[in-house]
């Protein structure tokens, strides 16, 4: 089998799975309305309520899950390529924490009243960008930080950011609290159609943009000096990709809060399945991340009925366990 053929097969399979996950997720919810029943009633000319449950409540969730899952997973795979470290992702590096800090700071300062709907994603982007360039400065000052060193700094960045968020919470008015709490746990409850559409457009654009760097990321897997010898302007490429991943993370965090480990779990398994070539890894990570988050959200919505869990709880438990497993395996192999 030739490689383009295998790649096309993998992408086709993932798209099919994604559609299935979407349909399945649209059909499950606390109200017990299934897709088939809603469709049948709609054909009979009734069931407007059912339809609106599906189109206005579940569809935005699924679309947001697609955008956020894909975006975070893409950010994860890109960061792993840039740092040449399979355990980094927006959450473990503290980029998500930075974004959450940016969002909560701007909501307290009332920036959203100044610049409208874009304020939240933009402040998330600014926070993510600060966190990532701080990490970059640390890792390039002392040469290359070791895998654990980088992760440790990332965890600390996350910790500092969430402490500042807590500080902001403790001095803020009670009515702002719920909104901030939501960013810390992570949920796909955003129902503003404009923001959902913005997330969809931006993450798909991010996927397209990331393909301008797929060869650079492949070359970088040999090491930074080797990549230079293959004609890659490594410093410039890293800066561009940091901006891209900050945009993706900032947007995802500002809409859905901190959803951890999506960018770690998904690329980790895809590397095993499709191999290390970023030409296939980028798109398949995006699609699988979307599938993973849509399904996680479905689990979160239904596992503890009638309570809806935030999706970050599910990804946090699944992803955290897998993270420890991957770290142990990597340490045992002596690769750290």
């Amino acid at each position, binding site marked *: 089998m030739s490689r383009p053929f295998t790649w096309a097969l993998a992408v086709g399979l993932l798209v099919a799975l994604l559609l299935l996950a979407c349909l399945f997720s649209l059909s499950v919810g606390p109200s017990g309305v299934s897709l088939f029943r809603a469709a049948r009633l709609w054909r009979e000319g009734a069931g407007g309520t059912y339809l609106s449950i599906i189109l206005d409540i579940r569809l935005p969730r699924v679309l947001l899950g697609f955008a956020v899952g894909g975006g975070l997973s893409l950010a994860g795979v890109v960061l792993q390529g840039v740092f040449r470290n399979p355990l980094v992702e927006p959450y473990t590096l503290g980029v998500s924490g930075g974004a959450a800090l940016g969002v909560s700071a701007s909501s307290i300062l009332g920036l959203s009243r100044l610049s409208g709907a874009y304020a939240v994603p933009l402040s998330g982007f600014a926070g993510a960008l600060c966190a990532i360039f701080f990490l970059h400065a640390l890792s390039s000052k002392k040469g290359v930080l070791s895998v654990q060193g980088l992760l440790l700094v990332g965890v600390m960045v996350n910790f500092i950011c969430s402490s500042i968020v807590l500080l902001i919470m403790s001095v803020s008015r009670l009515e702002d609290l719920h909104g901030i709490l939501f960013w810390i746990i992570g949920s796909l409850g955003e129902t503003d159609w404009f923001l959902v559409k913005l997330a969809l457009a931006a993450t798909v654009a991010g996927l397209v943009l990331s393909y301008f760097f797929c060869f650079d990321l492949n070359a970088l897997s040999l090491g930074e000096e080797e990549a*230079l*010898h293959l004609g890659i302007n490594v410093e410039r490429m890293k800066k561009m990709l940091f901006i891209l991943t900050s945009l993706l993370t900032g947007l995802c965090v500002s809409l859905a809060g901190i959803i951890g480990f999506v960018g770690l779990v998904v690329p980790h398994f895809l590397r095993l399945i499709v191999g290390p070539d970023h030409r296939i890894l980028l798109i398949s990570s995006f699609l699988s991340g979307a599938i993973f988050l849509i399904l996680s959200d479905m689990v979160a919505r239904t596992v503890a009925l009638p309570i809806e869990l935030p999706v970050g709880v599910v990804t946090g438990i699944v992803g955290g366990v897998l993270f420890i497993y991957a770290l142990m395996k990597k340490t045992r192999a002596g690769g750290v």
Partner: protein
Amino acid sequence: MLDLRRVSCGYGENIVLRDVSVSIYQGEFVGVIGPNGSGKTTLMRVATKVIRPAAGQVLLEGRDIGAMSYRELATRMAVVGPVDHDPGMRTADMVLLGRIPLRERYRILDGKTELEAAREAMNVTGLLHLRDRPVSTLSSGERQLAYVARALAQEPKLLFLDEPTSHLDIRHQVGLLDLVTKLNREKLLTVIMILHDLNLASQYCGRLLLLDKGSLASDGTPESVLTQETIERVYQTPVVVMNAPFSSRPFIQPVSREGGLKSDLY
């Protein structure tokens, strides 16, 4: 082809190379030798724009490499560095990475040109039968050849090699250096190679650059550079220089202070 004009460079405060001027001409096979820490690798890094010279200029075909893009450089020169990093991919894919500077970026899939160039590079290096094996499962000799194949896929005019023979047995050492010699003769590939083994350098290189504490101590044919007096001064080790059989190039035998002399036995 490559000119270093009064180049000084180093890392931060620490100046490694001092005022080095040297011109390499097309088709030459140049060996760079010198004790540890004499600046051999730094010389290679400044000539390939990994680090910038603190003073002086590096010219490639008459143009300052500081003004050339990395991509432009990569279509003219290729580097085989230390092989210590497992890229986690198949041999054929690793060799294909050498096509990155030459390919059109918007074409995501490998075209015929790419696949044929990689195939040719693996054919020349005798790796075609290993193309589907992961690089991590190759022996050190095969892995070194795979890196050479990747460099050849770049279709360079100038090839740098940093101690390509250091972890290889004599069969693979000779195999690799014979291959490079053949490319040098048949394709007029200019070769600049860092070597630790003075006898291999003497055997294969047409010209040797001897570095000592960041300066060029000697530059010329193996016969003129590898003299007992020069080697003993630069390496601070007593040696005997003889003529090698067949090639009659200089052959260097370090003299042990702790035995190994036949007279001790009597």
